[in-house]
């Protein structure tokens, strides 16, 4: 395995650097060693592998299908907008886009709120059965609830929700992963003394949560929000089953596109690019904040 020397090299350096303490991290002229070109080479390869399929998709999506049949040139062609126009004609793209935005935003907001609330209780409040209940929450992550699709579908049709966004939103408003995540985070990030202090000052539980718990949870909450947003945005199986082709989310629409243009890769991959652009934009904006938020939050008080 080619990665072993990497680990050897970098784990040691990481460890050496750790001894300097978090505060001096990144200070110019410090004594910590920089990793060598092997490390950057490995990472560069990883990033290349991460980005290349998207680039490829754009390459194919920017050419005419007649060009593609003779092998894809490595420079983008001028046909992307023409292909994109065909995509917009073939599937209800704007409808799918707004649906995806609504579903993902609502789900992310509610997951963050409910998970932080539960995480606050599990990490910082003492109550009978808390340990067992937390174990239960974690255990439910091992429960493949996706396999309940048949009854869930039956319930949704009884409610008349099939084809509506509610059917996609409601089952996702709080997740076991979110609760577990916030519990783990708050346990370390929120000092007991802080809660004690506001409680002595007369704050109720929910005030303690609002003024102390939520602010302390912010970095992890931002991460949870982003991951929930992305997970909801990219979710396919359940929306595919429960939504109508006339009112889809983006992944469902993308699948329709493939069914409509089954041999024309240039159209299909132009659609793949189009559907990915919104999340890439979000990622360009929020991904950075997210990463630095995690880094700041990881430094223990």
């Amino acid at each position, binding site marked *: 395995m080619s990665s*072993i020397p990497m680990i050897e090299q970098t784990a040691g350096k990481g*460890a050496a650097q750790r001894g300097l303490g978090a505060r001096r991290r990144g200070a110019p002229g410090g004594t910590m060693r920089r990793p060598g070109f092997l490390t950057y080479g490995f*990472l560069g390869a990883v990033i290349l592998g991460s980005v290349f399929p998207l680039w490829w998709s754009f390459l194919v999506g920017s050419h005419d299908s007649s060009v593609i049949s003779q092998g894809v040139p490595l420079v983008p062609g001028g046909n992307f907008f023409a292909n994109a126009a065909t995509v917009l004609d073939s599937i209800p793209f704007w409808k799918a886009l707004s649906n995806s935005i609504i579903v993902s935003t609502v789900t992310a907001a509610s997951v963050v709120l409910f998970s932080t*609330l539960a995480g606050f209780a599990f990490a910082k409040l003492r109550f009978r059965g808390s340990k067992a209940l937390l174990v239960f929450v974690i255990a439910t992550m091992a429960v493949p609830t996706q396999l309940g699709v048949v*009854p869930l579908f039956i319930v949704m049709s009884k409610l008349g929700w099939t084809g509506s966004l509610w059917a996609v939103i409601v089952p996702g408003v709080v997740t076991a992963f979110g609760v577990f995540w916030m519990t783990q985070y708050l346990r370390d990030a929120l000092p007991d003394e802080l809660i004690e202090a506001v409680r002595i000052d007369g704050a109720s539980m929910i005030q303690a949560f609002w003024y102390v718990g939520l602010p302390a949870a912010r970095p992890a909450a931002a991460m949870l929000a982003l991951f929930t947003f992305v997970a909801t945005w990219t979710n396919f199986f359940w929306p595919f089953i429960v939504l109508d082709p006339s009112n889809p989310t983006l992944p469902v629409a993308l699948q329709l596109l493939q069914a409509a243009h089954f041999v024309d890769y240039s159209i299909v991959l132009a659609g793949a690019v189009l559907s990915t652009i919104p999340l*890439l934009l979000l990622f360009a904006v929020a991904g950075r904040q997210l990463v630095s938020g995690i880094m700041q939050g990881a430094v223990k008080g």
Partner: protein
Amino acid sequence: MAVTDRVQSPPPNTDQRGSRDKSVKRLAFSQKVSKWDVKLSPYLYISPFFLLFAITGLFPLLYTAWVSLHTWNLIGGQGKFTGLENYEFVLAQPFFWNAVGNTFSIFLLSSVPQVVLAIAIAAVLEANLRAKTFWRMGVLVPFVVAPVAVGLIFNNLFADQAGLFNELLTGIGLDPVRWHSDSLASHAAIATMVNFRWTGYNALIFLAAMQAIPRDVYEAATIDGAGRFRQFFSVTVPMLRPTIIFVVITATIGGLQIFDGARVFDQAGLGGADRQWQTLTMYIWELGWGQRNFGRASAVAWLLFLIIVIIAMANFLITRRIANQGGRR
């Protein structure tokens, strides 16, 4: 530790002019409220999860077993009770066993390399890199690409005729692989989609866990003369134990339910002409929404549920054991 048992009631009423009686009463009341606040709030805060899980998770899962014991049509609804007939039917289907095999094959080809690579990437990301944020964001890019889009892109990359991977293979003098007709090759292609999308995500989870490891443990290891390699396997990996267990189990549960990428690996979405890459979830879809037979679909769903529980538990035990051994060295 928890603090609520030490919490005091709000400050006593300072209104000196009010009657003594009234103030005592008010104090008693607010104390009572505070007591209930302390007692009930935690349950209230965790209740949304439990309610939702009961309604959209547990109930449908249990009800799946009930549906599986009936003839049950997508349109017609509940039919007569048939006992284990659906199970007998399904277990006699070659396509069922085919889907079991495909699911496991794809799962193994994706989960193992993924976890190993993710830990390696995390270890590298933990180094004192220049432009840390750039690298960290870079590995996460595939995660924001929907599996369906990933599936469509790799469907093209793995195209049997003139696909990029086959072009590269023939370019270096090898035979092209029939990614869409050979069973194992199609599994490798679909596993590649899974690995592409999830490795970076898991690497960041491992990275976060690595950074939570107390620095003095490494200092102690350095003083004891442990080299980098030794430190990684004797300190980092054992300290990552909870995270490894978490990631492996999540990968198992997700991996055994794989649907998206395989669904769009061709246009029909049923897993190829001979169902070469039909997974169990795809089979559930075919039975339930293709053939409109909810009874049989539920039987397969319930069988898959049992399989996942068994594998997840086995995984848990094995992972814990491996991680333990690392710690005892």
